[in-house]
C-alpha cells in the first residue's frame, strides 16, 4: 500500500516538473508589418518596372504616405508555443494617430530644405493595398506631387518565460512576479520615389530594440507600451538617418548629372540670395561721383 502511495507521489512530482519545464520553454512572437515591395510590386507576373532618368523640377512638391498592409496578409501574424497561452494582441499595428505624428516629423525634416516647396501628408485611405505605381499616379494627379516618401514598418515582439514564471503555480505569482521577458524589435523605413520615372531616389531606415518584462496578467498592456516605445525610438533614428540621406542625395545629384536631371522652375534660385547693385543705382552713383569731381575741380 505504502509502495503504491510513493509511486503515485513520484509520478505526481514528475508530472509537475514536466509541466513547469514545458511552461518555462514557452515562447510567442507577434509580427506587424507593411511592405513597400508588396505595395509597389504586388504581382510577380507583371514585367519588372524599368526606372527612367528622373527629372527633378525644383522646388519639389513632395508627398508622404504610409504604405497599406496587403489585404490577405493584414499586416500581422502570430505564433505561440508552450503550455501557457500567449495573448499576443498586446502589440497593435501602428495607430493612425502615431502614423500622422511620424509623417509630420518627416515632413518637418523635408521642409528644412529650400529645394522642397511643399509637403503633402497623404492619408492611408488614399493608398490601396498592392496599388503599385498606378495608385501613385492617381495620388500624383490628386495632390500634384512629383516625389513621394513611402513609409513602412516591421515590428516583431518576442515573449519568453524566465525562471521566475515558476511562481505562476502559486496563482499570486502570476499577478505580482514579472516572469515574462519581452523583446520588441522595430524597423521603420522611408523610401523616396520619383513617381514619373519610377526611380527610387534614396531610403532611410530607423531601428529600435526594446527589452522588458511583465507579469503574466499584465503582459498585453506591457506589450502595447513596448510597441509604442519601439515605434517612437525607431522614428527618432529614422529622422537622423533621413537627414544624412537627404544631404548625401544632394551631393549625389551634383556628382551624377547623367543619372538625375535637375530643372529649376522660373523664379527659383535654389535658396540662394544675392545683394546686388542694379545698373540704375550704379548710374545714379556714377552721376554723384561725377558731380563730386566737378565740384572738387571747380573749387
Amino acid at each position, binding site marked *: 500500500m505504502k509502495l503504491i502511495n510513493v509511486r503515485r507521489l513520484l509520478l505526481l512530482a514528475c508530472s509537475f516538473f514536466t509541466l513547469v519545464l514545458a511552461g518555462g520553454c514557452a515562447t510567442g512572437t507577434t509580427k506587424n508589418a507593411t511592405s513597400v515591395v508588396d505595395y509597389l510590386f504586388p504581382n510577380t507576373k507583371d514585367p519588372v518596372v524599368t526606372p527612367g532618368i528622373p527629372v527633378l523640377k525644383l522646388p519639389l512638391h513632395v508627398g508622404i504616405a504610409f504604405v497599406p498592409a496587403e489585404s490577405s496578409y493584414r499586416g500581422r501574424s502570430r505564433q505561440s508555443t508552450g503550455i501557457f497561452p500567449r495573448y499576443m494582441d498586446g502589440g497593435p499595428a501602428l495607430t493612425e494617430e502615431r502614423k500622422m505624428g511620424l509623417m509630420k516629423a518627416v515632413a518637418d525634416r523635408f521642409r528644412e530644405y*529650400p529645394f522642397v516647396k511643399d509637403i503633402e501628408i497623404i492619408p492611408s485611405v488614399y493608398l490601396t493595398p498592392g496599388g503599385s505605381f498606378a495608385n501613385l499616379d492617381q495620388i500624383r494627379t490628386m495632390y500634384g506631387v512629383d516625389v513621394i516618401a513611402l513609409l513602412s514598418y516591421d515590428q516583431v515582439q518576442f515573449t519568453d518565460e524566465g525562471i521566475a514564471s515558476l511562481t505562476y503555480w502559486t496563482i499570486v505569482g502570476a499577478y505580482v512576479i514579472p516572469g515574462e521577458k519581452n523583446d520588441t524589435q522595430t524597423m521603420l523605413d522611408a523610401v523616396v520615389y520619383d513617381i514619373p520615372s519610377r526611380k527610387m531616389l534614396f531610403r532611410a531606415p530607423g531601428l529600435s530594440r526594446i527589452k522588458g518584462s511583465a507579469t503574466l496578467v499584465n503582459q498585453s498592456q506591457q506589450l502595447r507600451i513596448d510597441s509604442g516605445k519601439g515605434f517612437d525610438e525607431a522614428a527618432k533614428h529614422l529622422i537622423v538617418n533621413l537627414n544624412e540621406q537627404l544631404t548625401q542625395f544632394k551631393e549625389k545629384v551634383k556628382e551624377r548629372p547623367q543619372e538625375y536631371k535637375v530643372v529649376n522652375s522660373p523664379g527659383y534660385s535654389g535658396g*540662394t540670395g544675392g*545683394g*546686388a*547693385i*542694379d545698373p*540704375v543705382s550704379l548710374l545714379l552713383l556714377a552721376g554723384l561721383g561725377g558731380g563730386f569731381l566737378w565740384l572738387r575741380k571747380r573749387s
Partner: protein
Amino acid sequence: MAAQALLSKARLPVRTLAICAAALLVHFVPWLGQLLIYDRSAIAHGELWRLLTGNLVHLSDAHLAMDMAAFLIAGTMIEQRGYHHFMKLCISAAALIGMAIYLFEPVLQFYGGLSGVVTAAVVYLCLQGMTEQGSWRWLCAAMLAALSAKLWFELVSGKSLLLVVGGGNFVPVPLSHLTGAVVAVILFALLHLSPNFMPRNAARKSAA
C-alpha cells in the same frame, strides 16, 4: 595743372580699397568663399562669423564687378570728404544685414553680396553731404531721394531693378538694402543727435 591740383587734394581711400581687396580675394579663392559665405545651416551650427563675412562673397563675376564698382565710388567719396566712422558703418551694416536675413528670410540657405553695405555707404554719404553747404548738399539730397524711391519700389513690388547681373542664379534680396539704409540712418542720427556718442565726432564738433 587742374589735374595736378585735383591729385594734390586727393587722399588714398585706404579703407575702401582694403574692403575691395578682401572681396576680390574671397571671390578668387574658392575655399575662402565657402568658408565665409552666409550659409544658414552652418550659422545654425555655430559658425556665426558668416553673418558678417557673407557680405564679402559674390556669386558671379558680374555680381562682383557691379558691387565693387558701386562700393569704390561711394567709399572713395566718403573718405575723400573726410566723413568719419566709415569702417564702423561697414562692419555694423554687414553684421546687421546678416542677422536681418537670418531672422526674416528663413527660406534663403545662402546669401552673398556687398550691395547692402554699399546702400549703407551711399545713404551715409548723402546724409553727411546734406549737412554741408552749396551744390554738394543738393546733389546728395537728389541722390538720397532717388535711392529712397528705388528702395520703396523694391519693397512694394518685391522686384529688383536688376537687369544685367543675372548670371549668378540667385534672387535679389531687397531686405539687405533696407537694412543697410536703416543702419546708416541710425549711425548718422546717433552722431548728430548725441554728439558724445563717439569721441571723434565730439572732438570734431568742438573743434568746429
